[in-house]
């Protein structure tokens, strides 16, 4: 049974696209058929991070408007044959997305894939609400600073009211992915600590990705960070997060803090 994940945040620049690519590649590496869908119509970036920008012919909007068939628009990754990309259109805007069209495309993707990962645009308007509309699971990407946390809180409220699941009286499974975390700065008080963020948002934590130059390097060479260097600290964090998404229990570590020094950092979970 296919699972639809939305990667969302409200705020821009927190790492939604990076996380979509990294989680998508991590799930595909487990031999599960995965597609990453770019909902950021007009400001697409996922194709660059996936290194597929020179192979885009048709896009999501073409499929929605019936100008192309879904298999024509899907781009298979050159490194992993279980990983696919459905790019967004760069020449259109979010009004080109229709609720009916998105519903049709999502239904078709669910037939062919194990995981459908939707990369939401920033904001709370049409693009973002349509990206979350059909989600079973939401990954809320948050930076450890107050504006990002408040925007994430707003998005969680929308996930509980504007999604198809919420309208059926069901719930979207929500997970917090804390990105660009710097333990030293959090300790100095320049950044919110993990516990502060968890206390405010009160949703379970799925991973802590450290601030790292590896992320930028991976984007520049057009590879998801989990494929570019699977030994790097951010890659390890994303690989663990992907395992947790599939239901495995993996002990949580805070990057930059010495392992085992504090017993409480293992199995950290919020209500």
């Amino acid at each position, binding site marked *: 049974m296919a699972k639809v994940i939305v990667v969302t945040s409200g705020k821009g620049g927190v790492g939604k696209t990076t996380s979509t690519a990294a989680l998508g590649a991590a799930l595909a590496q487990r031999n599960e058929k995965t597609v990453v869908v770019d909902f950021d119509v007009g400001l697409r970036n996922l194709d660059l991070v996936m290194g597929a920008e020179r192979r885009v012919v048709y896009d999501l909007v073409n499929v929605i408007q019936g100008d192309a068939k879904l298999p024509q628009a899907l781009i298979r990754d050159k490194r992993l044959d279980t990983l696919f990309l459905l790019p967004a259109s760069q020449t259109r805007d979010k009004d080109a997305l229709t609720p009916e069209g998105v519903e049709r495309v999502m239904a078709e993707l669910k037939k062919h894939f194990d995981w459908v990962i939707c990369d939401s645009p920033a904001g709370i308007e049409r693009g973002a609400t349509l990206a979350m509309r059909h989600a079973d699971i939401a990954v809320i990407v948050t930076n450890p600073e107050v504006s990002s946390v*408040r925007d994430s809180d707003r998005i*969680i*409220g929308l996930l509980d009211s504007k999604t198809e699941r919420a309208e059926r009286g069901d719930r979207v499974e929500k997970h917090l992915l804390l990105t660009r975390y710097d333990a030293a700065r959090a300790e100095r008080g320049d950044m919110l600590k993990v516990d502060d963020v968890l206390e405010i948002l*009160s949703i379970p934590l799925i991973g802590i990705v450290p601030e790292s130059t590896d992320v930028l390097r991976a984007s520049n060479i057009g590879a998801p960070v989990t494929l570019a260097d699977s030994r790097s600290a951010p890659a390890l964090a994303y690989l663990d997060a992907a395992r947790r998404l599939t239901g495995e229990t993996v002990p949580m570590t805070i990057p930059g803090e010495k392992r085992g020094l504090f017993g409480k950092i293992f199995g950290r979970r919020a209500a």
Partner: protein
Amino acid sequence: MTKVLTDTRSIRIKGRSFLALVLSPEPPLDGWLARLDDLASRSAGFFLGRPVVLDVADIEIDRAQLKNLIDELGKRNVRIMGIEGGRPSLFEPGMPPAMRGGRPAPDVEVPTLEAGADAKAAGNNEAAAVPQLEQQSARAISSIVIREPVRSGQSVIFPEGDVTVIGSVASGAEIIAGGSVHIYGTLRGRALAGSVGNSSARIFCRRLEAELLAIDGVYKTAEDMAPNLRGQAVQLWLEGDSIMAERLN
């Protein structure tokens, strides 16, 4: 010139409900106006001193017709305080404002021929309307309980009574209660208690980090709050025109 902005007295803003008469014109408008004249002849002063709202949701009307209708009603001494159910394009400056969010109330009895064609009928109606209102407010004392966090951007509005939240109220969220507000968690957003004019309403929270607090229209922003209350379990109430606070143990 510098203005002194340090006056600590705050401006009081209150909510109040009135029972408005709602007129729903039916086409053809000429015929409807004639029937209105007929009603007025039976009971002079029926609309006098009463708030009247014009409901145009069910009729096809353009701006010129609406303007004309308001003028016609004005000639009959019926002054419209607001228009309900109109498209934004219907309005122009100088017209009564658009109204939204009205709650239905029982039909107001229109004086009939049998009830007597004098002003006494109007008096009777007024007498009948008042106990009805009191009955409503007596029945309305109630409360709601919210069992999950109130997220940024969400607002809980409950003029009928108390609001209890089992969880936190996020920065950018608001709770507006006719009665008291109880937060079993951290209050980071806004809490407005006694919003329909209830000075005995209180605010309780397990941890105070609020952006704004108000009781019966008297408000305090985060800036005006005593710093030693931050992060504490606190209750707030009103004494005269000032909000008092005390730590809960």
